[in-house]
């Protein structure tokens, strides 16, 4: 059955199946009690990181622009959704319904911030774009650190100086307390919701790639001058990819924040380190390879925990594994190995796909010839 489908459809089904199988395996392990508390606590962040990696891959791999501020959009989503949930903790009784609304609000707000930042940033290219997104990511994090938000019988109060400046009535409740952040967010996230959100993210990104808009975005990545010459509006499609990517990061933020009792915008959570970590997932998973992003996110999140047994050498082994993963991903020998024994090949029983192999060999030949011609 898998053989007769289009290559892209087959590859997408493998990706969905991989996530679902991983979910079932994890759920079975958890219910039989063979997973440590530590790993159990990592399950929701794992889903959030996977969503972040997939969404950043849309910007870096599909649109082809290096963004270093992805954690900023996550930060927006996390704070907006957590504030919403805390404000409505009593007025919306149904936990799931409240969480779904919070996620939608997170996605919309992160998307709007994405568009606002995208307007100036997407005029730039390459290194410059990376530097400016890095700056915006830090700005968002630092703005979150000075926001005070409170609710009382008169409504919502807001200031950026200190909590006592909110001038609330005696029944007032502080929602966001500056650098201390949000405490007491309802604990609505769980592994199942996380996996469902990851599947939705995959659905959106993979379907986008295999549609008219996705082709336009990839055309811009490969050659913007040619894309323009055949009538593709560069600004529109760059903005589309960037804002969808930001929206999905907002969703990941909502998932992340509803898993924590205390949410503060530290540099570990939402700063530069986080953005780089997401980028590492994307790069090691293979730029433009959606399935790889998820695998890399899972491996690199679990690895430090699994290596606790060899505590002293933990970071040493982690670094060596990063290098090994990189070699497996991009060295010619690694690529060859995957072509022969990868998941796609194993399901495709007819052995190596000859047309494609022939194509690759030709590529080397043609690239050389092409250079001479131009």
């Amino acid at each position, binding site marked *: 059955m898998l053989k007769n489908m289009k290559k892209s459809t087959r590859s997408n089904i493998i990706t969905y199946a991989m996530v679902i199988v991983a979910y079932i395996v994890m759920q079975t392990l958890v219910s039989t009690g063979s997973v440590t508390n530590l790993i159990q606590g990592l399950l929701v962040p794992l889903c959030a990181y996977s969503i972040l990696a997939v969404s950043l891959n849309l910007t870096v791999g599909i649109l082809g622009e290096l963004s270093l501020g992805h954690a900023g959009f996550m930060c927006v989503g996390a704070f907006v959704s957590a504030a919403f949930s805390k404000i409505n903790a009593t007025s919306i009784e149904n936990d799931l319904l409240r969480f779904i609304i919070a996620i939608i609000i997170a996605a919309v707000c992160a998307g709007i911030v994405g568009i606002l930042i995208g307007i100036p940033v997407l005029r730039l290219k390459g290194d410059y774009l990376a530097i400016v997104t890095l700056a915006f990511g830090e700005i968002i994090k630092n703005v979150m650190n000075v926001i005070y938000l409170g609710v009382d019988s008169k409504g919502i109060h807001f200031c950026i100086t200190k909590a006592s400046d909110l001038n609330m009535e005696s029944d007032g409740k502080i929602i966001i307390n500056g650098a201390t952040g949000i405490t007491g967010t309802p604990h609505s996230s769980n592994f199942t919701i996380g996996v469902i959100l990851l599947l939705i993210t995959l659905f959106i990104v993979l379907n986008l790639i295999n*549609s*008219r808009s996705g*082709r336009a975005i990839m055309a811009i990545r*490969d050659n913007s001058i040619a894309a323009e*010459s055949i009538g593709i509006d560069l600004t529109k499609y760059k903005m589309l990819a960037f804002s969808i990517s930001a929206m999905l990061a907002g969703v990941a933020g909502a998932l992340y924040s509803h898993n924590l009792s205390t949410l503060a915008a530290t540099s570990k959570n939402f700063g530069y380190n986080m953005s780089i970590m997401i980028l590492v997932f994307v790069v090691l998973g293979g730029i433009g390879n959606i399935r790889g992003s998820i695998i890399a996110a899972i491996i690199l999140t679990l690895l430090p925990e699994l290596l606790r047994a060899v505590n002293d050498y933990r970071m040493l082994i982690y670094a060596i594994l990063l290098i090994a993963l990189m070699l497996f991903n991009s060295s010619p020998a690694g690529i060859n190995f995957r072509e022969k024994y990868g998941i796609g090949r194993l399901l495709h029983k007819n052995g190596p796909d000859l047309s494609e192999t022939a194509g690759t060999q030709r590529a080397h030949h043609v690239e050389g010839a092409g250079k001479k011609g131009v």
Partner: protein
Amino acid sequence: MAILDIKNLGISFGGLRAVDNFNLSIEKGELYGLIGPNGAGKTTVFNLMTGVYKPSDGIIMLDGENITGKNTVEINKAGIARTFQNIRLFKNLSVLDNVKTGLHNEFAYSTAVGIFRLPGYFKDERLMDEKALSLLKVFDLDGEKDYKASNLPYGKQRKLEMARALATSPKLLLLDEPAAGMNPNETKELMETIKFVRDEFDMTILLIEHDMRLVSGICERLSVLNFGQVLCQGPTGEVLNNPEVIKAYLGD
């Protein structure tokens, strides 16, 4: 009426007058050649016509519509498609997808329809596949439709670029040195293809070329550009025997 009418086109880059007082009129269905020594301003004329540069002065009329100063996307929608001197394909997309991007504005279902796979998606994608495949057949590329564009041999990449340009259903096709880097056999085949495209699609074609065999073989009329100015214009045979033209190419 002429499909393309250019009057007094000119552009200056700082003190350099790259194109000056350029006039050109092409009839529908004509195969027109633009030749001239290196640096004469031929590609600049193409860039002016496709909105890459904004002309300093002059008017460009396409099929009765003034397209002067419009941007590249608008000009493509108005009906000019081009290929490039150095091939510009979407290297990482498949051959079929390269042509399908050319159909971008013809089957314009929205992003939401694409993401949520609403009924319009399947219908439009099927029509796009059919149309793209029929274009690939014309250029004998249908066998390689699933190859990555960068894996095609050089000659076929040139053909694919032409197929992609034709997918936008232009009124006028601009070819920038289509035979560059081709051997005599490939050039001969290319001449057949260009003629075939003109007849099959009833296309008007303006091409820049250095290969005089190709120019004299297929172009009906020529303009010769030298130092940004038109040296001579007319039927191919006359122009190529003009002593001024020979002097511009070979020197005194």
